[in-house]
C-alpha cells in the first residue's frame, strides 16, 4: 500500500496531508510566539519604567515594507505556478528570497549599531526582549530562506515529475512565509512604536 492523499485531497476532509501538516505547525508557532508576547506583556506591566525611542523607527518601517512585499511576491510565485508559468514563478521566488536577504542585511545594521553602543541583551529588559524576539524571528526568516533555496535548487526538479505536488510545496512555504511576516507585523509596533 502507498501513503494516500500526498497530492490529491481526501474527499471527506478536503485536505491533502501537507496542508494539514503546515497548519498544525503554524498552530504550534502561534503558541511559541504567543508565550513570548505574553512574556513581554508581563515584564512590561511589572517594570518600574519602560524606555521609548531606543530603536530606529525608519529601519523598522523599511523592514516592514520589505517583508510585506516579500509576502506579495510569494503569493505571485504560487499563482504563476498554478497558471503553469514556470519562468515567472522562478522570478517571483528569487525576488522573495532576495527581499528576505535584504531584511536580514537591514537587521544586521540595526544589531551592530546597538551592540556597538553596548546595548546588548544584557543591558536591560527592553533589549533582552528586543534581541530574543527579533532573533527568533530572524531564525524563522533564515529557515524560510533555506526552504526557498531548496525549492529554487535541487527541489525544483519535482516540477517536471509531479507539478501538483511541487505547487503544494510552494503553497505550504507561502503559508509559513505569511506567518513569519505576520509575526513581524506584531513585532514592529510592539518594539518600535509603543
Amino acid at each position, binding site marked *: 500500500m502507498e501513503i494516500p492523499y500526498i497530492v490529491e485531497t481526501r474527499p471527506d476532509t478536503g485536505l491533502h*496531508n501537507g496542508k494539514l501538516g503546515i497548519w498544525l505547525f503554524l498552530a504550534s508557532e502561534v503558541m511559541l510566539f504567543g508565550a513570548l508576547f505574553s512574556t513581554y506583556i508581563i515584564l512590561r506591566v511589572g517594570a518600574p519604567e519602560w524606555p521609548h525611542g531606543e530603536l530606529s523607527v525608519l529601519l523598522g518601517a523599511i523592514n516592514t515594507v520589505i517583508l510585506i512585499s516579500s509576502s506579495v511576491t510569494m503569493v505571485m510565485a504560487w499563482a504563476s505556478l498554478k497558471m503553469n508559468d514556470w519562468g515567472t514563478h522562478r522570478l517571483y521566488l528569487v525576488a522573495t528570497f532576495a527581499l528576505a536577504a535584504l531584511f536580514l542585511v537591514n537587521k544586521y545594521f540595526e544589531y551592530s549599531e546597538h551592540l556597538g553602543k553596548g546595548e546588548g541583551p544584557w543591558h536591560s529588559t527592553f533589549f533582552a526582549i528586543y534581541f530574543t524576539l527579533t532573533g527568533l524571528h530572524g531564525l524563522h526568516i533564515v529557515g524560510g530562506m533555506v526552504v526557498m533555496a531548496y525549492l529554487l535548487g535541487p527541489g525544483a526538479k519535482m516540477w517536471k515529475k509531479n507539478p501538483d505536488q511541487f505547487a503544494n510545496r510552494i503553497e505550504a512555504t507561502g503559508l509559513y512565509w505569511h506567518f513569519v511576516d505576520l509575526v513581524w507585523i506584531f513585532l514592529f509596533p510592539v518594539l518600535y512604536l509603543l
Partner: protein
Amino acid sequence: MDNVTTHESVAHSQAHDHAHHEELGFWRKYVFSVDHKVIGIQYAFTGLFFLLFGFTLMMIMRWQLAYPGRPIPLIGAWLGQDRAPMGIMLPEFYNQLGAMHGTIMVFLGVVPLAVGGFGNFVMPLQLGAPDMAFPKINMVSYWVYFLGGVTMLTSFFLKGGAAQSGWTSYPPLATLPIANGQTMWLIGMIFLITSSLLGSINFITTIVQLRAKGLSFMRLPFFVWAQFVTSFLLLLAFPPLEAAGVLQLMDRVAGTSFFMPSGLVVSGRPLTVAGNGNPLLWQHLFWFLAHPEVYVLVLPAMGIVSEIIANNTRKPLWGYKAMVYSVVFLGFMSFIVWAHHMFMTGMGTAMSAFFQTTTMIISIPSVIILTALLLSLWGASIRFTTPMLFALAFLPMFGIGGLTGLPLGLAPADIHLHDTYYVIGHFHYVVAPGTIFALFAGVYHWFPKATGKKMNETLGWIHFWGSFICINLVFMPMFIQGLGGMNRRMYDGGAQYAHNAGLLKWNLVIGFAAWGLGVFQIPFIINFFSSIKWGKAVDKNPWEATTLEWLAPSPPGHGNFLTEPIVYRNPYEYSVPGAAKDFSPQFEA
C-alpha cells in the same frame, strides 16, 4: 515518501531476516528507517533503556535516604571524587540525581515509550494506514529525540555535573552560574520539544487523513482517540516551554534577566544582573506545559488499558462515547489548570480560587473514563493474561493517584501538603503503578504483533506480582511521611528535623521495596529478549481481537496490509448475540 513500496511477503519484514532480496541496506532499514514500525520499536527500546536508567538513579538516591552518609555499595567506588568521595554521596550529586531522575523518566522514558513507541507502532495499524503521513519527519523526530537524550546523558560528565535544580528548573536557582549542567539541560529540552512537535504534527495528520475506508471518528479504537488528544496537548502546550527554555538559556548565556529579580543576594554577595525579571513567569510558562504533560503521560496509558480490557473481558467497552467526549473535554481543560502547582507562590487568592475550581472540574472526565473501564468488567468472564493483569492493576493504582490529587488541588489543603512526600506519592501513583504498568501491559499485548512471538506467561506473572507488591510498598509509605510533614528533596531524608524522627524508618521500607522492584524487572528483561528468539510463534490474531492491527501479518511488512482494509463496524464488537464467534473484527463484513 517515494520509497514506500508494497511487499507481499511477510518474511521480508522479520527482524533477523535482512540478508539478500531487500533493496534497502541495513542502515536504511534498521537505523535511519522511515517505516513507522521500525521507528516505533526504536522509540520503545530507547524509552525502555531510559526508564531503566532513570530508575537506577532513583535506586542510588534511595540508598542515601535509607542510610544517609554511608558508602554506596557496588557502584559507590566508581562514582568519582566529584560525586561521591569514598563512596559517600555529596549533596550536589543527590540534587543532580533528583533533577535528572524526573527529567529522564518524564521526557526520555514514559512519553517516548507511550507516544513515540506505542503511538508510532500501533496507531497507523489501527487506522488501516500503510505508514504515518510524513515518514521522513517521523524519522527526524526520533533522531532529534535521540540527540536530546545524548545531550542529557553527557551533562553528567561536565564540570559541576548535571542539572541540579529539580526537573522543574525554577529560577533564580536554575539561573545561577553554578553547574553547567543546567545549560545542557536547556539545550537537551529544546531538542526533545522539537522532536515532540514534529511527532505530534505527524500523529494528528495521520489520524485525520489516513483512516481506512469506513473508519469514521466514532469507530476509532479508544487508543487512537487517546493519542489524538495527546498529540494536540504536545502540539500546543510544548511551544510555551520552548519559549521559556529559550528565555532561560538567554538568562544563562547572554546575561539577560527575564527570570532574575533585582537586588538578589546569593551567599552574602549581591548578584550582578540587570534585574527587573520575574521568577514567577517561568513557573507559569513551565506549568502551562507541564500540567498538560501529566495528561500526555496518562492518556496513552488509558488508551492501552481500554484496548486490553475490551479484549480480555470479551465485551464492548461500557460507555465508549462517554469516554471519547470525556477525553476531548479533558484535553481542553488541561490547558487551564496549570497554576494549581503554584498555590504557595503568593499569586493571590483570586487566581487560586479560579485554578482550584478548574482543577475540580477536570477530575470529572477522568472519573468518567475510569468508571467506564471499571463497569466494563461487570459480568465479564475475564481472561487473566499477563497484559490483563497489568491493565487491571492500572485501575486502582490510577484511582489512588487521582483521588490523592484532590486535596492538592484545593488551595487550603495544599498549604499543608505542598512540597512534602505526599506530593511525590500522589504523582508517582499516577505515573508509576499507573502509566508504567499500562505500558508494560501494552508491551505484553502488542509484542506478538511486533515479533510474531508471544511472551512467556509464567515470567510475566512473576514480573507482575513482584512489581505490584513492591511498587505499593514504595509509594504507600510516602503518603504517611508526607502527611507527617516530611519535605521532599532532602539529601539526608529529613533527619535534620525533629518532627521527622518517627517517619525516617519508612525510608528503609521504601529503600528495600525499590531495590526489590529493581530485582523484579529481571524476569521482564529475560522474558523480553528470550521471547524474541524462543517465544511461542503465533498467527496474526493471537488474542482474538477486533481492531485493525490484528488484520496485518505478525510482524507486518513494509506497507503493513496485504490488501487495503475496509471497516464495517465499531471497534469493540465482542460477544455479539447471534454471531458465530465471540469477536466480530472491524475488518470482517
